């Protein structure tokens, strides 16, 4: 390819081949990074499996002093906090997203959306600080006693009102996953084609019926994606949870109990761990990584399939 004929000045340039190669190399390096990520973790985890077999993954007791390593309390803790967070985030998130997409005046839409999105900019550790120093005492004095008196009969509210514990971790986690959930949900809800909304209106639906029976179902794949991504975020959240969950290696059966998650376990014991315990922690990190990748990939797949199909795939022959 001849260079430009406008000027004869020597310009620094790079042949197309080399350029494409450089780009591909960067991409390949990136891919290699991800592969190395998983591999390195796996390599460090292998000794745990060879020493203990796979049973430590569901062992119920974590007692490093006696070399007993059971990850079940932490797996359960992770699932419990995630469940609490999602239990709150799904209705409130979808409701908020519906409001932002359809139920607020045009002028308020952008500022309110931005406000919710700013929640995502707050660092995790600041949520932890706020949760520990401000919200925990509030929980201990006001929230937990009220909930215990109302719902104590379910058996979920046994134990003292400490503030910190499973419930607080779940609530803080809910606040943290909310912005992502709302942002994606709002986009997919707003993307439901206007002709669907009009079609429902024209056939006599009330405003709520239009939203609940046509818009939300019409966006369901995207909403599933938002939900999945929120789950991924909740599963992997480390610092905020570590600060407010109370850090106990026992399987928590009460919402007020101290508990721990896999990330909080790693954070609290990695520093001093050696030998088998260290390998077990690597194994735990590997489990976390693999689950995180799988959930995220799934969520992205759902969200992407919405964008590809243009929100409502109706075959028009």
């Amino acid at each position, binding site marked *: 390819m001849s260079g*430009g*004929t406008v000027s004869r000045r020597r*310009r620094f*340039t*790079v042949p*197309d081949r*080399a350029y*494409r190669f450089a*780009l591909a190399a*960067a*991409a390949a390096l*990136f*891919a290699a*990074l*991800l592969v190395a*990520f998983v591999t*390195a*973790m796996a390599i460090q985890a292998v000794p745990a499996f060879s020493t203990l077999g796979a049973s430590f993954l569901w062992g119920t007791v974590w007692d490093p002093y006696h070399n007993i390593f059971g990850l079940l309390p932490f797996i359960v803790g992770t699932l419990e906090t995630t469940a609490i967070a999602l239990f709150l985030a799904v209705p*409130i*998130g979808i*409701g*908020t997203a519906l*409001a932002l997409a359809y*139920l*607020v005046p045009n002028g308020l839409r952008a500022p309110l959306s931005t*406000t*919710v999105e700013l*929640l995502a*900019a707050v*660092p*995790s*550790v*600041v949520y*932890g*600080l*706020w949760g520990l120093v*401000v919200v925990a005492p509030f929980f201990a004095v006001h929230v937990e006693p009220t909930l215990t008196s109302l719902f104590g009969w379910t058996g979920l509210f046994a134990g003292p009102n400490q503030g910190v514990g499973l419930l607080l971790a779940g609530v803080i986690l809910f606040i943290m996953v*909310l912005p992502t959930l*709302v942002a994606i949900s709002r986009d997919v809800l707003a993307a439901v084609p206007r002709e669907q909304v009009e079609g429902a209106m024209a056939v006599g639906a*009330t*405003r*709520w*019926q239009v*939203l*609940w029976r046509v818009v939300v179902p019409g966006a369901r794949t995207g909403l599933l994606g938002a939900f999945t991504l929120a789950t991924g975020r909740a599963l*992997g959240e*480390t*610092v905020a949870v570590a600060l407010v969950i109370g850090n106990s290696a026992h399987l928590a059966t009460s919402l007020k109990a101290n508990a721990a998650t896999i*990330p909080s376990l790693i*954070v609290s014991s*990695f*520093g001093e761990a050696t030998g088998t315990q260290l390998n077990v922690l*690597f194994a735990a990190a590997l489990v*976390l*990584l693999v689950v*995180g*990748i799988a959930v*995220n*990939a799934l969520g*992205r797949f759902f969200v992407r399939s919405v964008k590809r199909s243009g929100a409502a795939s109706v075959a028009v022959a």
Partner: protein
Amino acid sequence: MSVTTLDPPEDPVLARRAAIQLAATSSLRRRKAYSTAGIWVCRAFLLIAVIPLLGVILYVVSKGLPAWNVDFFTQVTKPEGIPNGGIKNAIVGSLIIDGIAVAFSVPFGVVGGLFLAESDGRIAGGVRLMADVLTGVPSITIGIFGYIVWVKNVGSYSGLAGAFAISIVMIPVIMRAAETALRGVPGTLSEAALSLGARKFTIARRVVVPAALPGLITGVLLAVARGAGETAPLLFTAFGNQFLQTNPTKPMETMPHTIYTYSSQPYADLVQIAWGTALLLMLVILVLNVGSRLIAARLGRERG
């Protein structure tokens, strides 16, 4: 005026119409009540979603501001009980680590973004998915990875290990933002350049990247905001340091780390330092966020 005889009332259409109208009018009150209730519940949820942000900001400002004094910015962290502590070492450490991370992530991320923007094949799709997935991966695992790769092999915690971990946080964010920004450049520009005989590299360097600059800057600033706030990747890489340390091959203190370690301390003066650091960190992140939007808008406007 003339008179019309009616059809017999057993016309099924009419009978149905009457039944339907009856159902519609008799259920109207109920349906309207549900509609109003549903709508207001959603609006209430919106309010609930906004309250925590206001709460966090309120507390960080009210509790953090009193911590800001001269000592805060000029002294290093002191153990509990010793007065006049500050976070100079944390500020410096954050600057150095995040700076190194940016220096590494931006070129890598932009080039990666160029690759994604120029390719549509399955491989590019795979890389894109990898980038998206990496943005959501638990940050503690990134820290562990940094530990394995850097700390274990080198033998000690270091700022460089921390920078490596933060880069892993930043790179996929920059890549995807760069791709979006680069794809946003109208194809006509590069086609025109191509028809003049320019090489692809030249087109990228002189046409596409400059045109995408607002979006690129936005992406970088947002990535930095994200990376600057991360704690977990730093815990077992940069580790922390009570003293001022400017040598990145040694362990360094960072702002998120200070907040983390001081939050759970039973000493009020240390907790106050945590609030002060939180305020500073949030201010930086806010400035980066707002700044990125402003710069993008400004540059976007200038180009018309």
